């Protein structure tokens, strides 16, 4: 079962994890990304491409399901203005096997970072505003799965 959510609302990590667990298997991996306080970050604004976002996330989930024996995949990504410490993204995967759950969770995050149409704009505590640039390490992490 694939669950995709994109919106301004926050998510409940425990509830989403248990929902995936409820689909069977006994191995559930999750990843949560939050707005990281790096000292002078005030807030983050997440823009996305509404007509494409869910479709792109679903494709990533389907790719994971075709590669690993999974019972369920949940991807939730927030958009809009987010303060330091707020949740941004949640990925949960459920399988009979821990390797499959953990690897597919890692795969989904790596692909999401380079394929899902989201853009982050950061506002610093001094008021400076900047669009975050693509990181080479994210591109490499995403490409390694295509080997």
């Amino acid at each position, binding site marked *: 079962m694939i669950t995709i959510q994109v919106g301004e609302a926050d998510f409940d990590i425990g509830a989403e994890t248990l929902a995936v667990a409820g689909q069977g298997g006994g191995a559930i991996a999750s990843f949560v990304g939050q707005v990281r306080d790096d000292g002078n970050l005030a807030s983050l604004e997440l823009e996305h491409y509404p007509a494409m976002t869910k479709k792109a996330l679903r494709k990533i989930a389907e790719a994971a399901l075709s590669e690993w024996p999974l019972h369920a995949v949940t991807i939730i990504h927030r958009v809009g203005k987010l303060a330091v410490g707020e949740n941004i993204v949640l990925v949960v995967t459920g399988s009979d096997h821990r390797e499959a759950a953990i690897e597919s969770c890692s795969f989904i995050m790596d692909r999401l970072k380079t394929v*899902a149409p989201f853009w*982050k704009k950061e506002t610093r505590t001094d008021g400076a505003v900047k669009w975050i640039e693509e990181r080479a390490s994210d591109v490499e992490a995403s490409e390694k799965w295509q080997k």
Partner: protein
Amino acid sequence: MERSLNIIYFAWVRERLGLDQERVALGDGIETISDVLTMLADRGAGYAEIFSDIGKLRFALDQDYGVPGTAIESAQELAIFPPVTGG
């Protein structure tokens, strides 16, 4: 009937153009994403600066990723944006 295409911009492309979307007519010879970019760059300084450095841009045609050489064919929507940075 004249072909037309809805172009939609995101992130700094949208901000620098001051425009989130526009409908453009596709003249003869405009067949690929690259052709559309050349057409946009020809509009003047602001556009030229953004659309001539295509290495910094990414594209989606009807919500599927494309490359400069991808043919427009009957697509309705071309999205132009910087590399994505979600997650």
